[in-house]
């Protein structure tokens, strides 16, 4: 009865609980590490390597085999031809060898000095190949009866090749050219400006539209459920479907919007909505607002419906007008959710890729940072430069999340 102090450290039960927790989390952590953390590290790695799309495959020996000459009768002279080349134009392959089986009935009459033949197995040591190397290796043979009988052709037994080549992705060459390319010239600043315009106006617009829609539906009437469902359509439907519908609607030649505007006398000739410089950016921003106002609308509506109605009754008694009630009661109550939504939507709009890619492909002054990743990596096929842009995006993202977590810790809810 000497020790009555509470136990120190973690007890066995707590340890068991922690172990169970990690056990339950292990699959998720593994999967996320494989698909999120590893690629992120890979992006940093690639961004300092001079990699282009064609470097993704390590250079390899390409071999084609056929038989040339007369192969009609016994005693005919023919030759087995191996057409060899290095698949890469600039990467060398070291220590190339090929091995093949020569079918029965073909007697090798003369052997290339680099090759040896034991029984029917041919093996050649072709040394080192520079990039773009190609060669035709001929093995002259004489036909025998067996060849005509069994019908086995040289190309029926595929030749095996070996060779050592270093892949651009794993070797020790590093460069800062990718980042130089990204930050070089005016292009980067115009891309950044477009991204900011799109993000800021897309986010604010979606919030304001959402607020307006939520105010409309924050009362019960017949058909409220239907309207609420309807207003969510843009968000729920596949982006590719609605993006193409917009493109068709605003087509300069056969688009209904243009026909309508001309008919109403707003414009004389068709407007190329997604092809003109300032207009295309405004249109993609409008699309962003159109597609994501439902989300803000849902969140704001949920918050509105949880506000106590007593307050409004009291305000009514005190003679507050409807606009005063909105400004002095609703807005302060909604400020929390509005700011959280703003931050989250800001980050997500910043990250948005599909919408602009589908609507304009980043043309006509709508190239944002995310579209630039694709553009650099696949259109210009410079994977390294694409990765460098991705690193820039990730940097911005870290800065945003820093703000986000400083801020969100004060807001309950989300």
């Amino acid at each position, binding site marked *: 009865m000497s020790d009555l102090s509470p136990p120190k450290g973690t007890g066995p039960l707590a340890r068991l*609980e*922690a172990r*169970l927790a990690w056990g*339950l*989390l292990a699959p*998720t952590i593994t*999967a*996320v590490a*494989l*698909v*999120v953390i*590893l*690629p*992120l590290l*890979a*992006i940093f790695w690639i961004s300092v390597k001079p990699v282009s799309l064609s470097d*993704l495959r390590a250079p390899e020996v390409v071999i084609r085999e056929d038989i040339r000459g007369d192969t009609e009768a016994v005693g005919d002279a023919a030759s087995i031809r191996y057409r060899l080349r290095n698949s890469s134009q600039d990467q060398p392959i070291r220590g190339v060898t090929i091995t093949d089986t020569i079918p029965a009935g073909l007697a090798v009459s003369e052997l290339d000095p680099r090759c040896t033949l034991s029984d029917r197995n041919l093996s050649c040591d072709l040394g080192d190949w520079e990039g773009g190397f190609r060669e035709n290796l001929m093995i002259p043979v004489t036909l025998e009866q067996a060849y005509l009988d069994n019908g086995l052709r040289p190309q029926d037994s595929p030749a095996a090749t070996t060779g050592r080549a270093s892949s651009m992705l794993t070797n020790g060459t590093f460069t800062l050219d990718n980042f130089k390319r990204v930050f070089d010239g005016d292009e980067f600043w115009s891309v950044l400006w477009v991204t900011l315009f799109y993000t800021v106006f897309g986010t604010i617009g979606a919030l304001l539209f959402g607020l*307006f*829609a939520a105010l*409309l539906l924050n009362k019960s009437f017949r058909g409220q459920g239907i309207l609420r*469902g309807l*207003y*969510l*359509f843009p968000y*729920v*439907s*596949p982006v*590719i*479907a*609605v993006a*193409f*519908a*917009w493109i*068709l*609607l605003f*087509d300069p*030649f*056969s688009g*209904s919007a243009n*026909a*309508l505007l001309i*008919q*109403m006398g707003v414009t004389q000739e068709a407007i190329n909505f997604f092809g003109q410089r300032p207009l295309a950016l405004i249109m993609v921003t409008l699309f962003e607002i159109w597609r*994501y106002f439902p989300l803000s609308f849902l*969140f704001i509506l949920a918050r509105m419906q949880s506000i106590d109605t007593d307050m409004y009754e009291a305000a009514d008694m005190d003679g507050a*007008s*409807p*606009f005063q009630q909105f400004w002095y009661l609703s807005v302060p109550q909604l400020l929390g959710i509005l700011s959280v939504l703003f931050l989250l939507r800001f*980050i*997500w*709009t*910043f*990250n948005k890729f599909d919408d602009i*890619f589908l609507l304009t492909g980043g043309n006509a002054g709508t190239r944002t940072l*995310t579209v630039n990743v694709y553009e650099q990596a696949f259109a210009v096929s410079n994977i390294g430069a694409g990765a460098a842009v*991705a690193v820039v995006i990730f940097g911005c*993202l870290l800065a*945003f*999340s820093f703000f986000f977590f400083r801020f969100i810790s004060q807001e309950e809810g*989300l």
Partner: protein
Amino acid sequence: MKYLRFGYVTAPLLGFLWTFVIALTVAITMSFATGSAFRPSGLGALIWGAGLGLACLPGPVWKPIIAAIVVTAAALFGFGPIVIGQGVSGFSSILGAGATAGFAALGLKIILDGVAFGPINRHVSEASLIKFLTGFGYIFFTAIVLIPFYVMVLTSLKNQAELIQNPLDFSVDLSKGWDLFRSYDELFRQFDFGIYLFNSFVISVLTVLITLLFAVPGAYAVARLRFRGRAAFSRSILLIYMVPMIVLALPIYIAFSMAGLRNSLGGIVMIYPVTTIPVALYMLQGYFRGLPAEIEEAGLMDGLSRLRVIWKITLPLSLPAMASVSLYVFMIAWNEFLLAFMLLDDPSKFTLTRGIASLNSSEIPRQHLMAGSVIATVPIMALFLGLERFMTKGLTAGSVKG
């Protein structure tokens, strides 16, 4: 603002604005429905709207009715708030003019309810303005949401020549019968859309199952169990959920190219769940936290192990949340475009979104593209409308993801 608080100012002003909104709406509706030439007139709306506004001030019912009839007649004679172009059929003209005048008068009667001709107080004037804005809001939002979908559906029923001839004419020629659905028929017969539909469905369902399999235990651990690093963990979930897909898509593309996993649905099924696990985990842990811990503790006291507690108590209690999460994950997987676009090149293995992207070429008529879009949109809409309750809850619970 003070000068506006007189019935004789408020009524004509709102009358003009509302009449113009109605004229514009009717013009667009009639144009889209029949392809005929209607357009609103600002001057007409100003003159007739002001008159209608004054006539619709509270008073005998015959005043707005007479006013509406006068405006209809004016519109038919060519100087009303809506201008009817040449060659519009008599029926359409009467319908357009009547609808404009009727809806304008009806709306104004409601908007101006309680507004006196003379001075009015702040409450009444703001109430009328709010009623105007509400009406405008309903029309505006319904229009912007419906028009793209309307164009999508009706374009898919037309043919190329009709589309070029009059882009506004969306009237459906019912006499064509089943031939209307020719684009759909061709998509399913020649473009393998049946396979794409099946692929998309299988991938989405597998994604949902795998996501739940990973996320449920994870969410439970984060919500209920005490361990070091719990707070940091739930934050990093949110952080991961903000990493843009395009940043990850590039290395995934490289890795898949090297591992030969491109062009395989298995590869897609490996990737999709990982993009949805953080969201699902985040949504579920919020719900699990809201469940009373006492029930689970009772289960533990009665000798159930933790895993059996999850299976027998937590899961049955959280079925609604599971439904929301499943729907939401299904929606993400069904609508996913970027990864499918980058990783699938073989037309026999496309998902629906990838299939639609392949229709976007100058050789394939546009109605096929729209028919494909409709095919992709209809299932998700049907699912969503049928289970709207869960979906709304699911979206608000954790979907901040774009």
